[in-house]
């Protein structure tokens, strides 16, 4: 060995020619530049704030805010004397409310329009195309302004509302719908329904296994479904767990504490988000369905499946693999776009932060706001990643 080392001496070269050194050096230089830049900028901001005598700490959160928010799950969720932290919490609840409701509605409408886009009916697919193009090619903010000025401001006063089936009422004070009020038996009902669903699912699986193993007809789906829902319905009929509370009209508009009332601003932001996002979801659904090979349709049709069955059992499950990643992006966009609620006077996080910025320093406020949106985005993408992993093809 020593002989070998003598015959082939390791050629020494300068350390700065070592690729590992070069990589490290390049990265350190970049890091130094970035950190230097950040320090310089932060320093400038701090000096500017100090010159303007604006505090940059978070101690304001405990102080009373001095403004009130009427929008929320309860009556008067944020009073003038409540703290800034409370205002943020109320605003976050409002954002979540708007995002969740819009998310569900936009998905349903988008699915519907995406399927209509591929309909054999000329009128249905043309109208779907027109819908998609109109809402995709104009800015959401413009749509919100339009909804606000042309629909919201023209609604009648609460004393003469538009009556919708239900009966529900729509007026400038908002949308009032019937509400379910729990009674003392509702806890039992929830428990019984949960048990029913659990037993139903277990039965379904068991019967399906029996069918797969023995080939006997076991009516797995029929029995399973009827147990799942039958128990809940029977229990409802016997226990009467909820009373329906209808909205009522008084002399000055809606009677408070009757029915479920959401503000007109809430209706406006949800309407805007749903119309805009569903156009994008429709395109995603269309491309997802088109990504399923036509042979799948033909094979299913040859086996006697109906159109609805083909869509539900054959095509959509395969299309979902293509649909879910871009759909995640749309959900993230929807959550971020809810920050435009300020344009229709809806008290969500960004709108409330803008109000706060008039009285306290903007730096801590924007740190909190961006933190909230980042957390929302991260949670949404985490949930959707789990979903995505479940729908991908399992390869062995």
């Amino acid at each position: 060995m020593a002989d070998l080392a003598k015959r082939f001496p390791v050629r020494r070269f300068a350390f700065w020619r070592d690729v590992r050194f070069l990589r490290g050096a390049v990265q350190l230089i970049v890091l130094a530049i970035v950190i230097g830049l950040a320090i310089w900028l932060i320093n400038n901001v701090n000096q500017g704030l100090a010159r303007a005598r604006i505090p940059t700490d978070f101690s304001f959160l405990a102080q009373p805010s001095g403004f009130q928010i009427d929008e929320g799950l309860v009556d008067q969720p944020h009073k003038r004397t409540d703290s800034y932290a409370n205002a943020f919490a109320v605003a976050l609840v409002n954002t979540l409310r708007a995002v969740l409701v819009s998310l569900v509605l936009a998905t349903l409408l988008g699915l519907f329009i995406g399927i209509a886009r591929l309909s054999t009916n000329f009128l249905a697919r043309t109208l779907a195309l027109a819908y998609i193009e109109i809402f995709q090619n104009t800015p959401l903010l413009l749509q919100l302004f339009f909804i606000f000025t042309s629909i919201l401001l023209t609604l009648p006063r609460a004393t003469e509302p538009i009556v919708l089936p239900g009966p529900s009422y729509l007026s400038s004070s908002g949308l009032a719908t019937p509400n379910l009020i729990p009674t003392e038996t509702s806890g039992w009902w929830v428990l019984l329904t949960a048990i029913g669903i659990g037993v139903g699912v277990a039965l379904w699986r068991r019967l399906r296994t029996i069918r797969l193993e023995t080939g006997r007809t076991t009516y797995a789906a029929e029995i399973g479904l009827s147990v799942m829902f039958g128990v809940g319905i029977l229990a409802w009929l016997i226990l009467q767990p909820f009373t329906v509370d209808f909205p009522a009209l008084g002399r000055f508009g809606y009677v408070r504490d009757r029915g479920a009332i959401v503000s007109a601003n809430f209706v406006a932001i949800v309407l805007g988000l749903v119309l805009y996002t569903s156009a994008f979801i429709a395109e995603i659904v269309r491309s997802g369905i088109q990504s399923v090979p036509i042979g799948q349709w033909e094979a299913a049709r040859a086996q006697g499946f109906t159109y609805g069955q083909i869509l539900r059992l054959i095509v959509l499950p395969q299309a979902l693999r293509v649909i879910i990643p871009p759909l995640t992006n749309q959900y993230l966009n929807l959550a971020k776009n809810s920050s435009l609620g300020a344009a229709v006077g809806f008290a969500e996080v960004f709108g409330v932060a803008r109000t706060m910025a008039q009285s306290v320093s903007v730096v801590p406020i924007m740190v909190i706001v961006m933190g909230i949106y980042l957390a929302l985005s991260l949670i949404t993408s985490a949930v959707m990643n789990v979903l995505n992993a479940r729908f991908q093809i399992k390869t062995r």
Partner: protein
Amino acid sequence: MTTAIAPAEGAPASQVKRPVIERGVLAWLRRNLFRTPFDAALTVILVAVGGSLLAQFLEWSIAQADWTVITTNFRILMQGTYPAEQGHRLGLSVVLITLLAGVSWGIWGKLFRATAFAFVGGVLIFVLVPLAAESLADSPRGTFGGYVSGQLAPLFSLLRDPVLLLVGCLLIGYGLGRFAKQIDRKRAGRYTLIAWFISIPICFVLVRGFSDADGILPVVPTSRWGGLLLTFMLAFVAIVACFPLGILLALGRMSGGTRKLTFKAPPRWWLNPLQWLRALSIWWRNLGNYPIIKLLCIIYIEFLRGVPLVTVFFTANLIVPLALGDNSIDAVVRAMVALTLFEAAYIAEIVRGGLQALPPGQLEAAKALGLSPVQATLFITLPQALRIAIPPLVGQFITMFKDTSLVAIIGLTELLGVSRAVLAQSEFIGRHRELYVFVAIVYFVFSYGMSYAARQLERSGSGAIRKIG
């Protein structure tokens, strides 16, 4: 649609009917509108609903709407408070850009008959309505003729010249492009690309100017830009500036390769700090050869993609003057900076998608040929990745164009902001429908035009990887 009738059992072949090929209007109707009873019901419902909506809109737009809000404020909607005597500079820029768009269309696109008819029809409307209005000039108010001459004619005659100019430039450019393509396709394409890169700074200089008040091109400060002009300048600057930044970020995120070490977790590893360190070290080593650069890029991209654009605008509006220690920075410049930084993160992800879609053989072949990493990126991988990424890039540019409307929230007067300012004037209160419909049409025309162009580009094959043979 062919209907094949299966031969009955034992029937002689001569009795099998020939499949009937259905043609004509009735067959089309049956096939597309009344295929099944459900289809027929759907058609009837859609005709009723869609027809009544369309009828309401038409009745409103040609019999009730008061379009004077647009004719009166047309200049301010288009260019804000840009000095009127300098208007020719804007006209020149528009002509330049439209000509170039036409040339590109001639080289890479195709003029379909339907598009040509749409153009001719559109132009004819703008020419004919004012002409028709002259013959209806003495119709009394309240009648349809009176509405056409009083309301629609001024609007259309106002729009006629710009529309004629735009369409004219587009068609002249198209002709030029076709001509150049026949002479030398490759060189024509290259020169057009170069022309695009030169013309955007030229337009910027034309619009902004560079000398003092008495010079050839006096400076027009950005605070006087407004309306559609500001929308376009914001979009242009952001597109041009965010592109290199986005590519750098994408390269940074892809740099140094990746390793795929897996963390083989022993049971209950989360109780053991030493295992945490092992997991951390594997994660760090999986980042590749440039972990610090890659992490910085990931943090930048994921942070900006996780927050809404309005919050970025809002923060930049207040922080940029403080951070740069300079209070004189104009709100428009702040918005441009914010939009550029924000969109660069999205562009980076799109370019990364393109880079990842490349077959790894490309880079390996480049290395085998002795190209340095920089050469391999510049000449081999990046051009192909960008070519793959053209469709999503155009989509992002459309989004960017629409996103400029958010500066209205921080009080800038781009197209949407200026229309809100107009609506705040007492004489135009209640005219929001007319104005917003007009603004929506403007946005629609440009967004749809861009996506149409992108689709043509995709169809022409320019976006695809070149294949062997």
